[in-house]
């Protein structure tokens, strides 16, 4: 079993490195770069002058979504081992996990009430 894993994973690592390198190396087969002023600016619907910087700040909504995701993902990490062993843990596990989930559900309800997920 373990030697199978070792051999398989080494072949897969080689493949995962080799295939993208092969793909990227084919870029050399195409025609040469012709330097043109218009070609070198970023493509924004054919406007011949790129206006402003593209590393602008963006809507805080996305930041809130990311924060909520981190919260829920941490919850989910705790739930994986419980989910697999739920039969052995029985009612004790149910009560513990449901308490934990109820706390996070209260947080979710607060987020709904605070309209953090409503797009304005």
């Amino acid at each position, binding site marked *: 079993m373990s030697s*199978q894993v070792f051999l398989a994973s080494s072949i*897969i690592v080689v493949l995962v490195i080799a295939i993208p390198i092969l793909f990227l190396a084919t870029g050399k087969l195409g025609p040469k770069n012709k330097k043109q002023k218009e070609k070198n600016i*970023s493509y924004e619907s054919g406007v011949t002058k790129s206006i402003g910087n593209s590393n602008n700040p963006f809507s805080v909504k996305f930041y809130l979504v990311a924060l909520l995701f981190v919260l829920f993902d941490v919850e989910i990490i705790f739930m994986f081992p419980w*989910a697999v062993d739920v039969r052995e843990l029985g*009612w004790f596990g149910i009560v513990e996990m449901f308490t934990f*989930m109820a706390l996070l559900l209260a947080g979710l309800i607060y987020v709904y009430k605070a309209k953090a997920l409503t797009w304005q």
Partner: protein
Amino acid sequence: MNIILIIVIVVNIIIALLFSLGAAPILVWVERRVAGFIQDRLGPNRCNIAGFRLGGLIQSFADMLKLVFKEDFRAGAIKEKFVFSIAPVIVFASAFLSYMVMPFADDLVIGSQTFVMQGLPINLGVLWFLAFAGLSIYGIILGGWASNNKYSLLGSIRAGAQVISYEASMTLALISLLITYGSINLVDIVNFQGKLLFGFIPAWGVVMQPLAAIIFIVTAFAEANRTPFDIAEGESEIVGGYHTEYSAMKFGLFFVGEYVAMSASSALIVTLFFGGYNLPWLGTATLKEHFSAIMWIIVVALPLLSFLFGRWIVKNNVWPKTDDIRNKETKWLLRMMVLMNMVIIAILAYFLYSGIGVTGTNIAVAVIQVATFAIKLLLMNFVFVWVRWTLPRFRYDQLQNLGWKVLLPLSIANIFLTALVVVGFGV
């Protein structure tokens, strides 16, 4: 370290490669032909090699060649050159790696050794898939950010927000499944689904957990950035989204990565909800027990199906003019089909005559299960394509509402329900 072990590992990785990377041109073809069918037109059917069109499949290879010989251009406005080049590699590699844990067949017994039929035979299964499916978003965000293009940046931010919104519901739907199966090992999960419910219904995930199935399939669409969740690309709004600035095989890597990710999602859906490599009502033990009967069925059914398929080809691919290339292709396809039939029937007849042995039966059952998995995978991929050409794109706020206000509470409720039923009734 013996020779059989190495052969089995190499065969497993080749199957995984065929189902992921090799499936990409076929999926592109399926996508275009189904799009043509749904929009009442033909789709690509002109491209050919010496008259062989294979129903338009050659077009995919022509497109790949075209991408290879395009100019690999990077605009002067792009400053982060390394990040720009590495982003498509991350997308491709994560999709490819997430494919590696899919089981293609039940454990293969050769002599005294048992082999796990996965590309990478580890028992992490679901966790491995989640880890690498989540990693692909790094490629998209880095690519969009490094492009120094406002459309790309918008596309990648949308993709990031979308993927993280739906990943929460996806993993929560998975947890209710794990409660049912009691394992994260995909082989165990598939073997669980080989059982029968009440003695006559196959205990597939879609029967045991219908709500989780719906949630998981919807979120899998979002994870793979497929329509109706393709706001990250949104070609009618933000040009091409995160891959606006990419060309040649750098774009090709994004493109292939998208199809590999779609294929990986389909494989996981098939494995979790549609019985994986199991044929309904025919478990591995049943197949091994009645294998000679199955060989007889194949010997009878294969020529019959080939005949029907050949008639369908003749009806649709023959032109009245005798020198048309279509007639030549039809003639050669029919010849190859007859030859293939003869070879397969000869092999089966030899085994029926001389007996196939225990090892032979095990290998043949594995082949049947790989074929079953491939057919299920193709059907699930067809569903992905079907949905893409049926539903329009969501607006961003609709997407956010669906993810956080519908799917998330539903999946949490499903966990409560499943846990109470499992512990309460002791099933």
